[in-house]
């Protein structure tokens, strides 16, 4: 095991893919599924994330439709910036496209495409987060004002937290891309954060539809 670690370290120093075919230790176990366990783990994690969002959506619709004395959303005297949030939606969705470009690029061995794709994706993600925070500053009500305000901040904040986590992953991938990691054969490190980022984007469509449009 020690030797494997050292060989990986040397390979990395040469700006090379660390996981080349020098396998030490016991032979790999029998693979009984075509999906690798890393990808499967991420997909299962995303299912659990969907359930966390489901809990928050349950709270949202409960407060909006079932709870006593419900008024409309958000409560009277306040307007949600639907148009700005719509532009923000477009920004986040286009980041999914650039992410996809980065993933396809590394599969085809196009390192330039990977780097540019990752930088663009990170910038778009950061822009989304910036506009979201700006919206919080100017919206005029606080989470403590009413359950309606609470759940607005609850749902968008939960999503924003996920964007932040996704963005951190993207930045790690970007740094690694510039350090010469990944190859057409070994790109789990791009693929798995990519799956997470696509999930964050798709979930935003649901959040946006539920809160801003309906």
């Amino acid at each position, binding site marked *: 095991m020690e030797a494997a670690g050292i060989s990986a370290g040397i390979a990395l120093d040469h700006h090379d893919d660390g996981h080349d075919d020098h396998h030490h230790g016991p032979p790999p176990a029998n693979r009984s599924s075509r999906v690798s366990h890393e990808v*499967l783990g991420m997909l299962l994690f995303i299912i659990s994330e969907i359930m966390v969002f489901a809990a928050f959506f349950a709270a949202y619709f409960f407060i909006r439709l079932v709870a006593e004395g419900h008024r409309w959303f958000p409560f009277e005297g306040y307007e949600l910036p639907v148009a700005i949030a719509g532009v923000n939606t477009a920004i986040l969705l286009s980041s999914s496209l650039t992410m996809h470009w980065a993933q396809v690029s590394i599969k085809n061995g196009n390192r330039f495409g990977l780097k540019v794709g990752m930088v663009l994706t990170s910038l778009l993600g950061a822009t989304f987060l910036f506009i979201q925070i700006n919206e919080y500053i100017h919206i005029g009500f606080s989470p403590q004002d009413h359950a309606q305000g609470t759940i607005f901040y609850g749902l968008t904040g939960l999503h924003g937290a996920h964007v932040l986590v996704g963005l951190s992953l993207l930045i790690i991938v970007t740094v690694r891309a510039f350090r010469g990691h990944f190859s057409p054969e070994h790109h789990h490190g791009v693929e798995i954060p990519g799956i997470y980022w696509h999930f964050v984007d798709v979930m935003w469509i649901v959040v946006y539809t539920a809160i801003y449009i309906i």
Partner: protein
Amino acid sequence: MATANPALVPEITVHSVEPEPRGWVSWITTTDHKRIGILYLVTTFVFFLLGGVEALLMRVQLGAPDNTFLTPATYNALFTLHGTTMIFLFVVPIMAGFGNYFLPLMIGARDMAFPKLNALSYWLLLSGGIVFYVSLFFSPPEAGWTSYAPLSGSVYSPGSGIDAWIFLIHLTGISSLIGAINFYATIANMRAPGMGWGRLPLFVWSLLVYAILLILALPVIAGAVTLLLTDRHFGTGFFDQGQGGDPLLWQHLFWFFGHPEVYIMILPGFGMISEILPVFARKPIFGYKAIAAATVVIAFLALLVWAHHMFSTPSATIVLVFFMVSSFLIAIPTGVKIFNWIATLWRGTVEFKTPLIFSVGFISVFLIGGITGIFLAVFPVDWQLTDTYFVVAHLHYVLVGGSVFAIFAGIYYWYPKITGRMLSESLGKWSFGLMYVGINVTFLIQHSIGLDGMPRRVYEYPDVGNLALYNLISTIGSFMLGLGVVVTAWNVVRSLKKGARSGPDPWKANTLEWFLPSPPPANNFDVIPRVRSVEPMKDIRRQIARQSETPVELGAAEPTPR
């Protein structure tokens, strides 16, 4: 790699090999699924003993009317600690403990899919337990394991005990979630060659469904306790009617998790019983596919019945009817399983060893719990019985008679594999006798206590009717049950040194873990056998017998070719 310079890579000089950690350091740093499994099993059993002591203290208080042994606040803290400990720190994680140890062995894998996450999930569990129990030293939570809003809000529970409870849910929740993802990925990805889905041991099937239910249910309560936390500390109003929220929201979110949790606690038990019965009946399991399918159907229905815990809250009749009927439906796949277990025993060559006795005890006691469950699923009956001791009796029949008996059957069945030593049969039978009688003496009478109208979670009661006698009987039973548990605990400790050597396969069992020496070596399998049926060990034993007796067999077979 196209750009790799092959001459550079082999130039490695290892100056020193780091020594393997020894002693307690090796246990803290381990990522071996077997060691993590043992850590899980020991830790959760300690929590089980703590929860048991809490239960006995409550039973002492209730042993006589108008008793003043405990203060009301202490009593509230005790039932909260007892329920939370048993559910979140004992039954759910001990199933993960058995799963950790035996899942890779049963499917012929080297380890779990994510060994480091596996270690993380154990240490998160332990941290959750410590965070929760530390609250004993300032202000223990007093809102029950359900922590209903608004009782758990900052107005009625100003102390920090509820926060300790919330952190326990978060920590053990993440622990179980990581464990569940690990189980699923391991089962999907690391099965031995030849082990298709139709040859998966039934315990592994139940762990798969356990994992799916955890992945679907746990995040919901993680969300709910997060809302509770912000309500308590940041002035939000999710559960506060004054701010436009609704306390009922808590109940919906809690029970959407809470009911699948019931099956999370019992399904791996079902799986253990399905492994143990065919071994000791010396007969294949009756209806393998039916049992596996019933497990999946139970899990699916479990997600659709949560509001039967909320029949006494205002809801439209059609909603009540839906949840009543969906709860009835669960009886069908459960009945299929009980039928199959009995059919497995039927005309088998039954060996009355302790694991089998616990399994049979499980079937009988769990059946009673299931039937009272059908009573409670009828909503007009539930209106009468909700929050009485009838509910307490029901849930303890399925949890103690169900999950705990299955766990004890599992301990007696697998202890030889983990330690290489047999547990004492006579102590095991004593333990079973005390526990079986203890359960029935403690909890059967509680149905009557509930029908007489005594509510649960009260610390005292007046001397009216037969309540004093009934409660005294229940208290006596609880000490028998406790003694039975102590006998097994003593058996486990004593047999570590004094138990007979077990050898690799003391029971002549069916699944792959018995292929290995006891205890198994760190690398599990040197050779992974090819799996050709649901009972690979039977095939292997047959093959060995054929190889050693080939000439004799051939000679004997010659005169009668047919």
